[in-house]
């Protein structure tokens, strides 16, 4: 494999940008310029980087580790390793593009300062590191950094309920962080390793998991639930989405889903022979997807409704991964990519509605189609996309999820996926009707809000949804090939 020096730049560059904009706090023009230039450069780095691995400090893999070390495998990595392949490229390309969109949409808000943009860049660096890291401890460190950055993005809204949401997120973050760290420590104690590839080999060589290693799996699974926003952490996560600015919520839901994908692949690689883990993942995924959809149907506030839809869709991604076949895992990852696009459109539309009407309460809104026809049409198309209606992208991934559930011998789950798609459609189309078609409203739209940037970005995103829907193999095939080669 090629030892690419550009790979760590995907983490280091956003961190440098974060330090710069933080240093220039309140110098708005400089912050804007650096933010725009840096975010565009951040998009280019994953596109220019060649697939390969990066060995930090040049520590190469040892050929023969001394026997007295009692390690179960003779050759191990001696330093932190980042690996970059097609899945990482797709995820990072989408992550950086969406970060650019969020920076463009957030740049003119009053809450914008150097610190706010710095937190966006830190969260970008953290998710990039989580996607790239082949080292479990490095992975953990960046999940913690991500938690702090996400909480800061919500706190920046400066409302009491957003402070509460971030506080709760941090409290449960300590539970999750502690669980993951303790799990890693136990694995280090048993196997003496932190590199995921080495750990996977050592666990395979060691036979059945010892009780202490089982405790480690359980603790790391708790961390996985938190990072992914699955039950019982779905409330904390949806609360974060609801109380962040809608543009930031679009980024937060994307980050959570990509962390879900990265952490699931890591867990399935390390404990590949442990089938019970997949069953537990599947159980929590089903629970989350049902609760998320039921709660979404109950909401009367657009932001809260979309927050629960986002949580429910994360459950659908986890369901694909939990089914545990190469086909279903690939379908799950593909759905994560498709879903973040459709959800981002819906959150960006919410951002426009919040700017125009200063509220997102459904019973106060109405007649929006006359005031913003383009936004309304795109929201309707995004509703179709997120519900899995052809020819949009989510149709391709949900169809694969249904097919993989049947192939895996769980035909009941395919019925559940269809039911949940219908529920998602009902929840979001209700919101669409209430905002854009319901006659009679007592709130006037702010005529100063033109929303040109919002309109441009959502049109780009819906075209992306349609393009992936028409040519799904461009994204799906590389994912499937890598998942098969990983043997998870």
């Amino acid at each position: 494999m090629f030892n690419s020096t550009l790979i760590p730049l995907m983490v280091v560059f956003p961190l440098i940008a974060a330090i710069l904009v933080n240093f220039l706090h309140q110098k708005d023009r400089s912050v804007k310029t650096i933010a725009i230039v840096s975010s565009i450069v951040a998009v280019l780095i994953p596109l220019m980087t060649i697939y390969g691995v990066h060995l930090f400090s040049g520590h190469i893999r040892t050929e023969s580790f001394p026997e007295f070390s009692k390690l179960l495998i003779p050759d191990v990595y001696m330093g932190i390793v980042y690996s970059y392949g097609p899945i990482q490229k797709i995820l990072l390309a989408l992550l950086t593009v969406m970060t650019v969109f969020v920076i463009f949409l957030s740049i003119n808000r009053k809450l914008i300062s150097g610190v706010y943009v710095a937190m966006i860049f830190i969260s970008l660096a953290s998710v990039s590191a989580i996607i790239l890291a082949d080292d479990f401890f490095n992975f953990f460190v960046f999940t913690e950094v991500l938690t702090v950055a996400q909480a800061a993005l919500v706190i920046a809204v400066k409302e009491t309920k957003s402070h509460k949401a971030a506080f709760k997120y941090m409290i449960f973050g300590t539970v999750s962080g502690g669980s993951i760290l303790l799990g890693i420590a136990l694995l280090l104690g048993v196997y003496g390793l932190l590199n995921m590839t080495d750990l996977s080999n050592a666990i395979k060589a060691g036979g059945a998991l010892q009780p202490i290693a089982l405790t480690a799996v359980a603790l790391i699974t708790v961390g996985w639930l938190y990072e992914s926003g699955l039950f019982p952490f779905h409330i904390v996560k949806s609360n974060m989405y609801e109380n962040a600015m809608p543009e930031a919520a679009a980024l937060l839901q994307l980050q959570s889903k990509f962390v879900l994908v990265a952490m699931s692949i890591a867990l399935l690689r390390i404990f590949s022979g442990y089938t019970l883990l997949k069953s537990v993942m599947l159980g929590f995924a089903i629970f989350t997807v049902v609760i998320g959809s039921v709660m979404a149907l109950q909401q009367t506030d657009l932001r809260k409704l979309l927050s629960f839809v986002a949580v429910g869709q994360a459950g659908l991604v986890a369901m694909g991964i939990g089914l545990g076949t190469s086909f279903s895992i690939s379908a799950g990852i593909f759905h994560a990519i498709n879903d973040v696009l459709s959800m981002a459109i819906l959150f960006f539309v919410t951002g426009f509605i919040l700017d125009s009407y200063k509220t997102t309460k459904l019973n106060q809104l109405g007649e929006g189609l006359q005031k913003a026809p383009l936004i309304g049409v795109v929201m309707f198309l995004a509703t179709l996309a997120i519900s899995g209606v052809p020819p949009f992208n989510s149709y391709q991934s949900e169809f694969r999820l249904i097919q993989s559930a049947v192939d895996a011998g769980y035909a009941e789950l395919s019925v559940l996926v269809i039911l949940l798609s219908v529920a998602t459609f009902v929840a979001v189309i209700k919101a669409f009707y209430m905002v854009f078609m319901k006659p009679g409203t007592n709130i006037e739209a702010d005529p100063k809000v033109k929303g040109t940037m919002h309109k441009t970005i959502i049109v780009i995103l819906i075209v992306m949804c349609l393009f992936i829907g028409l040519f799904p193999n461009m994204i799906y095939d590389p994912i499937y090939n890598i998942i098969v080669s990983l043997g998870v």
Partner: protein
Amino acid sequence: MLDKIYEIFHERMEHKGKGFGIGSGFTSEFLMFSSILIAGMLVLRTANSVLFALGSLVILAAILFTVPTVFRVEKENTDSINLTSFYVVLTIAVILIVFFAGSGVLI
């Protein structure tokens, strides 16, 4: 029975906005019930054990008596830190039990 359920929904969801609130309430109730039924079928088919079969039937019967269930689900899914803490602790316990028992360490 449907009339009675409609009355309950009407009474509890009036503040959520006339027809739409009740409609989505009914949809979520239907979704909840179907999901539980499907989950029960899945457990019965895959677990292939008398204990699981009896357990599933008892849970299904208990849920039938709690219709409409969505209000309970909504009550249990508020952003209260106490409730979330309770479910987090419960989840940690369940995961540990499942992993230990499923791997033959406990049983």
